[in-house]
């Protein structure tokens, strides 16, 4: 695979240079030249205004017989006897993918005491549910999940496998991918089917989050993807038949290489961003941990949850559970107030579905203003105190 530059067409405009994330292209004697740093990502191709750059790909040779692989699977996880909601969200998106491919949508569940729940997955679009039942699977065992699921996948050969990008999903998905030599894409924010090939087009923010990459597994199957909770929506469908396949196993603890010694509930009050109606978030512009108080005060006045961009967690201004964005939570409150947040894509993908977005930022060019419904250009430390007074006044009037 290589990047080809047409010297006749190239005008030396350097659009490609500016768009390359790696410094992999330079202008020498008014012509673009590929450097050692090039990773063949293809960012320069779209950037070129005169179509002088093309990516020459080697012919795709299938590594497996792709026609043998059929169906879309969603792997569910559960916690304290409750199915994690991301499974229903993945069924929502999975249904559309399955319709497009004209294949079945299958939910796979490992656990115990879910017998009465199995038929309910029909309401969320599943055509079949495969239930691996064992009392030991009340809790999560990494190696048992991996061996059971890998075996099942090898036997039934689904073409697409969707998994929640939770600490559990991110633990077993890569290990299964390795076992099966399957392509796996983490934290997808978009999933589409490519018309001609039936490939799954997996889009995710990358390079820390300001660029989107679309990733494919063109020559092999299955195609695996993890998706953060909150990215897709669960969709109820009119009730239909569902096939239930139950596999009963009598696992004992000695069947696992790990032993669960103890499970500790942490009672610490945690931010509940996913269910919040209003979220007030701060970013780098807040300035320091101490200065976050003013943002917190605005949140308190509004009865809102407090959120933060990635950097505020990296700098330990806020605890991890306050993080909004690709590597944090995906939220969709009625009102999202972003204070001193510039608006990197990895943050935007976590909050852009909010009903109303308000941005307060010093920099009039901050990308956050592109998604904001109301923008205030100004220093948040001057704006927020005034805003707090206005809100208090308004609340008193009511």
């Amino acid at each position: 695979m290589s990047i080809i530059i047409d010297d006749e067409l190239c005008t030396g405009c350097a659009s490609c240079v500016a768009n390359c994330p790696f410094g992999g292209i330079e202008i020498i004697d008014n012509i673009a030249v590929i450097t050692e740093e090039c990773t063949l990502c293809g960012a320069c191709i779209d950037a070129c205004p005169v179509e002088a750059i093309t990516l020459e790909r080697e012919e795709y040779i299938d590594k497996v017989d792709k026609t043998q692989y059929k169906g879309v699977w969603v792997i569910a996880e559960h916690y304290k006897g409750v199915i994690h909601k991301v499974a229903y969200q993945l069924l929502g998106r999975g249904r559309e993918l399955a319709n497009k491919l004209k294949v079945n949508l299958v939910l796979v569940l490992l656990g115990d005491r879910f017998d009465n729940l199995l038929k309910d997955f029909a309401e969320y679009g599943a055509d079949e549910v495969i239930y691996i039942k064992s009392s030991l699977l009340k809790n999560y065992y990494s190696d048992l999940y991996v061996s059971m699921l890998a075996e099942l996948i090898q036997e039934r050969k689904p073409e697409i496998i969707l998994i929640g990008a939770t600490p559990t999903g991110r633990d077993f998905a890569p290990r299964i991918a390795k076992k099966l030599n399957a392509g796996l894409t983490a934290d997808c924010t978009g999933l589409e089917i490519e018309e001609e090939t039936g490939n799954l087009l997996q889009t995710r923010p990358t390079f820390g989050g300001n660029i989107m990459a679309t990733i494919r597994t063109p020559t092999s199957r299955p195609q695996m993807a993890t998706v953060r909770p909150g990215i897709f929506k669960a969709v109820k469908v009119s009730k239909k038949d569902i096939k239930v396949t139950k596999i009963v196993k009598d696992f004992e603890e000695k069947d696992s290489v790990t032993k669960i010694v103890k499970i500790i509930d942490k009672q610490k009050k945690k931010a509940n961003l996913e269910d919040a109606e209003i979220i007030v978030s701060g970013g780098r512009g807040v300035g320091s941990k101490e200065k976050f108080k003013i943002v917190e005060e605005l949140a308190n006045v509004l009865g809102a949850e407090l959120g933060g961009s990635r950097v505020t967690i990296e700098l330990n201004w806020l605890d991890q559970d306050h993080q909004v964005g690709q590597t944090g939570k995906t939220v969709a409150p009625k009102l999202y107030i972003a204070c001193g947040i510039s608006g990197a894509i990895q943050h935007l993908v976590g909050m852009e579905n909010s009903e109303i977005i308000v941005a307060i930022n010093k920099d009039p060019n901050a990308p956050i203003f592109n998604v904001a419904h109301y923008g205030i250009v100004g220093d948040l430390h001057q704006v927020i105190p005034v805003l707090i007074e206005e809100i208090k006044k308004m609340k008193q009037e009511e």
Partner: protein
Amino acid sequence: MLIVKIFVCIKQVPGVSEVKIDPKTNTLVREGIPSIINPHDKHAIELGISIRQKYSGEVIALSMGPPQAETALREALAMGADKAYLLTDRAFAGADTLATSHTLALGIKKLLRDLKKNEDYIVICGTQAIDGDTAQVGPELAEELNIPQITYVLKFELKENNKILVERAFRSDEVVIIETKLPALISVLKELNMPRNPGVKGIVNAYSKKQVISLSAEDLGADKSEIGLNGSQTEVWRIFVPQRKGKHIKLEGTIEEMSQELCNNLREDKII
């Protein structure tokens, strides 16, 4: 049993977690971004060193990357790692996580050849890298080495008979204490420890007394079809900077006027 080899896998990443976009030209700003050790990986190095100090073993830092990733390994040496290996070759370029974990596994297997029967090892990774955020290489490496894995580790303890006892953070309100036997791979969270500063002596040692050994695809005996782009199942099909169109209203006037207008608008929208 004796723990003799403590492998720490690290990655060199751009020193900012976000590649900046110039809003006027909508292009990437690349100048002046230094490369650093992936922040999570520093916690892995710290754990490696503390295991050696408390028990035994040598800390071996390992990285796959371009020649300039040597700097990251020097930093690991400065912190206190005993040895450092850079797996570097043009043939490794374009690797996805499957090909990356395969290359790292080849490196570890090569370095395990002199491991004796009564000796044991552990592999430590950061949970994820800040540039790719996949958190996939650790578990994939564990699978290829055919050893147990425990990810998202908050606390670590080495017990008798080379058992390890770790706290794994599954969810924000739950911690699970898990026991397994070495050899094993763990991926650590930042809350686990506080990485030490190398200090002047450490830095001097890293450049004078210790060395970074480069290993090529040939040194590892790698099959060309299993490394780099060829060994990858996924390919980057397109990279793009998304264009976003808002229905934005930029408020005007003094701070008081803007605040009032915002409150009025939010009230009309029945938000507050």
